[in-house]
């Protein structure tokens, strides 16, 4: 039998279906994938090295650029870690506002996921509906912070400023409107024959393997492990809200799809509860070394002006301790290992990126499948390269 020659195909780093600059070197025997080696690093900006020469306040915009599809969720992770290290208690109202922004970011991330995932597999129309709803969230972001994609609304010890009435109204409109949009996605895809054949029994991974490969988030829950940090390690008053954790059983592309679709509505439920009983009170911790005095006070009071100036160029100092805190990002467990050294710069900041480990599991998921399935698999684990490469 002629010795079966395999060909090497370079998929990426500029391939539309790799959701960013991920490059996978596929070894193909005809259409079947014999071996796959992902190559990353094309978007490495050295965020962890940059963080060591910036003060704690200046690192927040850096974390926006990790998983830029759902920016506020990253801010949540970083700010909670710093507050944990410095022992700061964030006021309730700020916690609720943060939850709203983080959940909106999760929905935004999932919009991008469902749109591109369906488009890769050939369902053209879903992306238009998904991006129509995503636009509403972008407008909310712009209303509250002036930036659509990376709002940087969080501050250490609270948020930049209080929510405006228009923000609250827009969030309510979104909560009222979105179930209809979500229903539209279900109609288009869930029972669609082509969709189910392209996704069922593709890229299956057992619960035990998923854990061994370090998968977290919707991809892990698709295989049946109900690990969600909002329940396992509650933060920012998530335990005030009533919501469920959707879990799949087979762990194939279709189960991951169902888990994420259910997460759409769960997040919506959280936002609804949060916006309805948004508590009154300040949005920043009452601490002269951390909280920025607001602008009109600064025009009149020299001590406020000096404090605002010093907070920006120097900022608070962290004790000489180490702490690890993680939050449930749109893609999985987004953790920050922070080492303080008594100065206003972190001594070391390690970012635990969920997509890094999702991408490392790609060979395990892909081998044995056809090239077309590889596209579906990549879409189902939903990686963002900004977070992998840092």
């Amino acid at each position, binding site marked *: 039998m002629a010795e079966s020659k395999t060909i090497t195909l370079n998929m990426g780093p500029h391939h539309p279906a790799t959701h960013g600059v991920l490059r996978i070197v596929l070894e193909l025997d005809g259409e079947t994938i014999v071996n796959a080696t992902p190559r990353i690093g094309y978007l490495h900006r050295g965020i962890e090295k940059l963080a060591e020469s910036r003060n704690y306040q200046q690192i927040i915009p850096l974390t926006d650029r990790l998983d830029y599809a759902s920016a506020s969720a990253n801010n949540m992770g970083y700010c909670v870690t710093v507050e944990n290290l410095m022992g700061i208690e964030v006021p309730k109202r700020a916690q609720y506002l943060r939850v709203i922004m983080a959940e909106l970011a999760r929905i935004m991330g999932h919009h991008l996921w469902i749109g591109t995932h369906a488009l890769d597999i050939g369902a053209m129309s879903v992306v238009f509906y998904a991006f129509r709803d995503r636009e509403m969230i972008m407008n909310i972001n712009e209303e509250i912070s002036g930036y659509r994609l990376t709002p940087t609304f969080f501050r250490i010890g609270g948020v930049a400023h209080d929510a405006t009435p228009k923000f609250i109204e827009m969030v309510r409109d979104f909560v009222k409107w979105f179930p209809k949009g979500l229903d539209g996605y279900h109609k288009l895809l869930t029972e669609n024959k082509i969709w189910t054949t392209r996704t069922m029994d593709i890229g299956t991974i057992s619960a035990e393997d998923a854990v061994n490969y370090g998968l977290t988030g919707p991809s892990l829950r698709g295989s049946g492990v109900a690990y969600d940090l909002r329940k396992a390690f509650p933060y920012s008053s998530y335990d005030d809200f009533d919501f469920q954790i959707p879990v799949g059983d087979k762990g194939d592309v279709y189960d991951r799809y169902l888990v994420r679709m259910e997460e759409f509505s769960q997040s919506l439920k959280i936002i609804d509860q949060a916006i309805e009983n948004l508590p009154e009170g300040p949005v920043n911790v009452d601490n*002269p070394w951390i909280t920025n005095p607001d602008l009109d006070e600064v*025009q009149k*009071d*020299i*001590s*406020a002006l000096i*404090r605002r*100036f*010093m907070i920006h*160029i120097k900022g608070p100092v962290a004790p000489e301790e180490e702490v690890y805190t993680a939050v449930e990002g749109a893609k999985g467990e987004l953790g920050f290992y922070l080492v303080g050294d008594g100065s206003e710069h972190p001594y070391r900041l390690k970012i635990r990126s969920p997509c890094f480990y999702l991408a490392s599991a790609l060979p395990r998921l892909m081998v044995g499948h056809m090239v077309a399935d590889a596209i579906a698999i990549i879409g189902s684990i939903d990686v963002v390269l900004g977070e992998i490469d840092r």
Partner: protein
Amino acid sequence: MSMVRLTIDGSEVEVPEGTTILQAAEKAGIRIPTLCYHKRLPPIESCNMCIVEIEGEEEPVNSCAAPVSEGLVVTTNSKALHEQRTANLKKILKHHPLDCPVCDKAGECELQDIVYEFGIEDVPYEPRKVKRDDSYSTTLIRYWADRCILCGRCVAACSDLKQIGALEIQGEDEHARIVVDPDKCKSCGECLMVCPTGALTENLSKYKGRPWLVKRVWTTCSYCGCGCQFQLNVLDNRVIGITTDVDTGVNRGSVCDKGRFGYEYIGDESRLKKPLIKENGAFREASWEEALDTVAEKFKAIRDEHGPDAIAGLTSAKCTNEENFLFQKFIRAVIGTNNVDHCARL
């Protein structure tokens, strides 16, 4: 020099007689907040931030001036002290203008640091009733009267460090300001060096830069033989000023007017930028290739025709050791003569 033993915040410390409580605390590694104290100046006692409580005395005492005595028990931090210090600071801050965004000193201002360290709040700004003029003795230093917290460091520097005494504080609290005698002032900038705030700023360079944007390079002054150490402040390849440090170099932070204000020639427009060759009486620009070849050919020709002693070299007392070494090596090894000298005589 007999030794004195005292306890500060419960820790025992032994210092020679005559040291102040502040210096003893420093030796014991205890930090006492200060504002008008400066390492090279005698105690001024105008800000009262360094007050400490001494067992057996009701009134807190300025630790920057109070000498140590045997068996003293000192506490440097207590609720009362903190309130007293905060009150002192607020008194100073009351008339301080809201200049931080436009003040050169912002980012390295000792007033900013201590206000942030104490976390002072609600000091609404009250402009002074009397508008004080900003006149100063030299155009190279600018005086911002309302930023001045009247700590008296500049007066002490001018009288004690330089023995000139051109500065003094005149007028009572509302009208008090620094008054300068223009005839005595030498524009040496000693006052500029010790000023904790932006009350005295360098008025020469057109370009300013925030301290965290400016690149600072330690070097030795290019003028007299004292060998003062200072940092050249560079902002996008332009020298915009110099800064010094009390603990570095034989000058211990001080420099003269040439050292502090004599840096403009570095980026001057009339610097030589291209090699020049004289042709029938006038210079024309030339490339390095052509200029160096001309010099080498000419030297070779003259050496071969008239012998090495027909060439002489003048090295320079303003160039570095390495350049002088290389120059005399060139004259001796390459040309082959001992005719090398420099103007050590003036």
